[in-house]
């Protein structure tokens, strides 16, 4: 499978990150990633976009929003006077809220990562076995690394 089989690399890599690919497709993507710097770059971009989207805010209404709506004297003649008095404050509050949303968009929460400890152990001993004694380095991973035993 290549990007041409399933569509654009972005779509394929998105499916890859979502775990939607079969083992065969996943292997093909990993081969492509190992061979192609552009695919690796796209993978990074897809991850970054996801992290940015994940950081988007979910606005919560104030706790007393319903009480305030019910109290609002809509259509009352004196309301125009109140609106004139509170007008500048409303604009300021609106501006602050808009600024908060902009800040939240501009500073996305970074994507959390979890190191794959078994894979890192395999990577380390494999590298060590090339310039240290291979039997002594590789024997400890001759059985799969297990945790919590």
């Amino acid at each position, binding site marked *: 499978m290549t990007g041409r089989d399933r569509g654009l690399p972005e779509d394929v890599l998105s499916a890859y990150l979502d775990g939607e690919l079969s083992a065969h497709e996943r292997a093909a993507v990993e081969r492509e990633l190992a061979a192609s710097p552009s695919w690796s770059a796209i993978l990074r971009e897809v*991850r970054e976009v996801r992290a940015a989207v994940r950081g988007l805010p979910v606005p919560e209404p104030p706790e007393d929003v319903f009480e305030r709506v019910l109290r609002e004297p809509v259509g009352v003649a004196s309301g125009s006077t109140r609106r004139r008095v509170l007008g500048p404050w409303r604009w300021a509050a609106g501006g602050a809220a808009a600024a908060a949303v902009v800040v939240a968009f501009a500073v996305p929460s970074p994507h959390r990562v979890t190191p794959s*400890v078994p894979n*890192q152990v395999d990577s380390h001993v494999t590298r060590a076995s090339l310039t240290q004694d*291979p039997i002594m380095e*590789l024997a400890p991973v001759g*059985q799969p*690394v297990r945790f919590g*035993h």
Partner: protein
Amino acid sequence: MIARRAAPAACVLVAAAAITAMVVASVAAVKAWAAGPGPGGGRGEQLVDAAERAVREYAFSGVVAVEWYESGRKKTERVPVHDDDGMLQLGTTTRVMTDGERTLVRESDGWTVLWGGHVATGQRPSPEAKYDLNVTGRVLVAGREATVVEAREERTGALRERLYFDDATNLMLRREQIGSGGRVDRAVGFVTLTAPTTIATRRAASPHPTHVAQPKPVTEVGSAYRAPRTVGRGYHLVDAYEQPGGGVQLYYSDGLFTMSVFEQRGPLDESALPRGGRDETIGGRRVRVYETPGVDTIVWGANDVAYSCVTDAPRPDLVAALDALPAARGRGALGSLAHFVLAPFSWD
């Protein structure tokens, strides 16, 4: 007055320097004599080098016992090892296979290439820069005559490792890491070994891989990462790699022990780490420690980077190495303000 007082001080300094130079020269001469003649260091280092060559020269079969401690409890695992004309296979159902060029590991859905022959590697530093390697005797290991070499840290005299080399072939038969109080903290050694035979024609590792996960060597790491040239007590950066899943691997060695520091950009998600580790504070930082056969893995997060250190280094070396790497810092006033403002907008 000042000039008259300075003159004797200068004389004392010169004399002290001369004496120091003589002592250093004498120590170096004694060490050179004790190490013995020949290229590549003394007898101990020559045996270490010869053992690495012997693996590529002999075919053999045997069982290796791996011993380690987990939360203070001793564990042992037996691993069949078979060298079929240069193709080394390890594990009951052959989990790892290498021909010296390509290394593959068996996973649930097939073989994964962890290393390909075209990836260049840096040289192992000489262990004699840090350790005194001395032949201390001969014993039987797996029924075979073996020479014992002890590695003592030059600076402190502490015994760090005991190595056993087959007299007939130079194969390393056993490796013991010595901890505080002289306890064998970790050991890997043959318990049975058939008579090794010389390899006539080398075989290549044959499985057809379903995955490729080999690292890519790099000469620079991204600005988010730190790559100290040395860490701890004499661990030199040998190689740096970009990992297939993202992040970098920095490979360090002091000649006997090794250490890989993995760095991955993003805050550490501790909740998703595998079970079985324990939380510890090492060098003032909170870390998760996993004790597995052969190596320990230490995981922590700092400055929006997740760090892991995979190593067989003795604990004092590990503690010193972590000092060279970033630790989590407090947010500070501005960071706290930013967190206060932005926290309601975050899902994390």
